[in-house]
């Protein structure tokens, strides 16, 4: 900013600060309003988890429980082996997320920074399979797994979900934004492609890695149909399967489902809070200039 005299600068700075404060206030009000709309169903979940089952589905909606049934949070652990389900979910989600992020970002480098014939056709095949609904090929997939004797093991789910095209696509799009001069410069400095991936590209893509990890984790954690089709032994079940036990053939215990759902959200919450610091404005770009 090319300014010559000091006084107007100060005045305009003050004015801007005042404007910022007003802007911030407006922003907070806006966010608070948004918060109510967005969190409403969650609040309902929370309140239902503290009710008797008969009080859950009432109209008009009962936002504050008539009687606070705190015992739901104690009883659920003995009604179903929830702790075991949580650790099963965790094993699956961590393994799948780890493999997806690793192989996805690795493949994305090949698709965005290395040129070779057939690359784009291959990439299109990747994207195209995303367009096929799972309901269409879940039976052929299952038949394969059955022949490999992998049904009713975690391996089946890991192999199915860890190599998804989604992660490759996401990371590729992100790598596209990393200027080629950066990788070329590294090449001139004597790094080979693997070195460039590990030392230059990976550190620069922390926000994308964090979002891929977060989304993969959440999708695996909340997946119902996959574990439902592949896992038949109760001791392998995940949280989402375990909670469905409360939906019987003729009736459903919604209070318990909500109690379990609230508990099952907590791990995701921790992951989100841990990962979201990579979304703080400014930190990721520091590596680009230098």
């Amino acid at each position, binding site marked *: 900013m090319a300014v010559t005299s000091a006084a107007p600068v100060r005045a305009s700075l003050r004015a801007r600060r005042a404007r910022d404060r007003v802007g911030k206030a407006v922003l907070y009000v806006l966010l608070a309003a948004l918060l109510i709309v967005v969190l409403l169903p969650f609040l309902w979940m929370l309140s239902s988890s503290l009710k*008797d*089952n*008969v009080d859950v*589905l*009432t*109209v*008009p909606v009962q936002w504050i429980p008539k009687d606070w049934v705190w015992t739901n949070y104690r009883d659920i652990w003995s009604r*179903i*082996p929830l*702790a*075991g*389900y949580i*650790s*099963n979910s*965790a*094993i699956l989600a*961590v*393994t799948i997320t*780890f493999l997806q992020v*690793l192989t996805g970002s690795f493949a994305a480098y090949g698709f965005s920074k290395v040129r070779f014939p057939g690359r784009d056709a291959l990439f299109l095949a990747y994207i195209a399979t995303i367009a096929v609904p799972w309901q269409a090929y*879940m*039976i052929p997939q*299952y*038949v394969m*797994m*059955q*022949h490999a004797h992998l*049904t009713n*093991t*975690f391996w089946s789910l*890991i192999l199915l979900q860890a190599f998804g095209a989604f992660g490759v696509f996401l990371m590729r799009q992100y790598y596209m934004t990393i200027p080629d001069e950066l990788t070329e410069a590294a090449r001139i400095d004597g790094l080979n492609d693997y070195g460039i991936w*590990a*030392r230059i590209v*990976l*550190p620069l893509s922390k926000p994308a890695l964090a979002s891929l990890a977060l989304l993969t984790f959440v999708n695996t954690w909340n997946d119902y149909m996959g574990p*439902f*089709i592949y896992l*038949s*032994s*109760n*001791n*392998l*079940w995940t949280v989402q*399967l*375990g909670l*469905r*036990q*409360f*939906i*019987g*053939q*003729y*009736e*459903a215990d919604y209070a318990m489902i909500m109690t379990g759902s609230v508990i099952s959200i907590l791990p995701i919450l921790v992951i989100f809070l841990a990962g979201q610091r990579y979304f703080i404005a400014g930190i990721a770009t520091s590596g680009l200039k230098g």
Partner: protein
Amino acid sequence: MKRLTRTLAAVAGVAAAALALAGCAGSAGSSDSSSGGKTLTIAVWDYAETPEFKALFDAFHAANPDITIKPVDVPNAADYESKVTTMLAGGDSTDIITVKNLTDYSGYVAKNQLLSLDDVEKKLPADKLAGLDSYKYKGDYYALPYRTDFSVLFYNKTMFKDAGLADPENLTWDEFAADAAKLTKGSGSSKVYGAYIHTWNSLVQGIAAAQNGKDLTNPSYGYLKDQYDLMLKMQKAGDIIDFGDATSQSLAYQTVFETGQAAMVPMGTWLIAPLLADENAGKTNVDWGIAPLPQIESGQPIVTDGGPTGFGINKASKNVDLAKKFIEFAASEKGAEAVASIGIVPSYSSDTITQKYFSLKGMPQDALSKKAFAPDKVVPDLPVNPNSAAVNTVLNEEHQLIMTGSKSVDAGIKEMEQRVKSEALNQ
């Protein structure tokens, strides 16, 4: 970067270790075989929350200590059929498949997936097994029943007394509507309805077909008109809970009945077991009874809709003899005792079993309830037919349109006939 690499390595290590000890949820009831004997696998839904399976398996194990039963547990009853289809398509060798309803049964037999059980059937007292006939397909039996449910009218005795009405004995549907009008009172959230017709299409179509002696897989549905007209009239008068509201509230009929939101609920006998359980757990104090389902005309035999739940043997089973032994047991008096002890209506009927059933804690003891327990004729909603799943899809869609008022009764019935013909039967 080093730190990131280290973190990744650590995560990989932990994951690998965890996989090695995979399977952390201590088995919730599944009896893992340990004692060198023979093992029989049975596909069931929601083992931990469906006590009839455990009761039956335990009784069988007590009678045959050398045979251990291992449930193949499907967590959600609603998706049971999808899972079984997938398993069988993959060549799964689970010995016994629990046959949840006749529509599923139609699918299995049409695809030639179950073994014939004729030899077992010959050893059973056919006259005592309710619902056995429904399993007959081209002269053979491919499943045998252990429980048979049918529709009855659940009613709230207190509300009938308060309204000065006689117990709903031998009602016609018109009398049912008249009673419902008298029982309806209040408004807003404290409104009490005369009746609640749950959102299932079987509660209108299945019952009407059974009582008119018709077959829903035959696309000619003129006889449904009267029942629909009656339901819509009651809905318009506000004597039954509105269909749209019930759907959007995912209304649970058990809750509606237990909390006294409705005085009469036509429903299957499966509602008895959870009612008894809630009563004994102190969750409800509703004073209830069961009455025969209302009929088209008075003075006629009591006709109701219903059907069996049973077991069939997977074609790929390697323990056929053991499996037959279990199925025979489940259909016998001993099996009946086991399921009756937890409030489930067994297929095998005898005076002893009925007595045992009514001696359960909390069971109503009046003569009307006992009469309701022995209808003259139980007819399946949909007979065994390879197309019944597809037929039911169409019938249910049109049912929703009629009940939400999106279509007139006549238009809906006409559409049902056309669509069942062209889409489900491929005529």
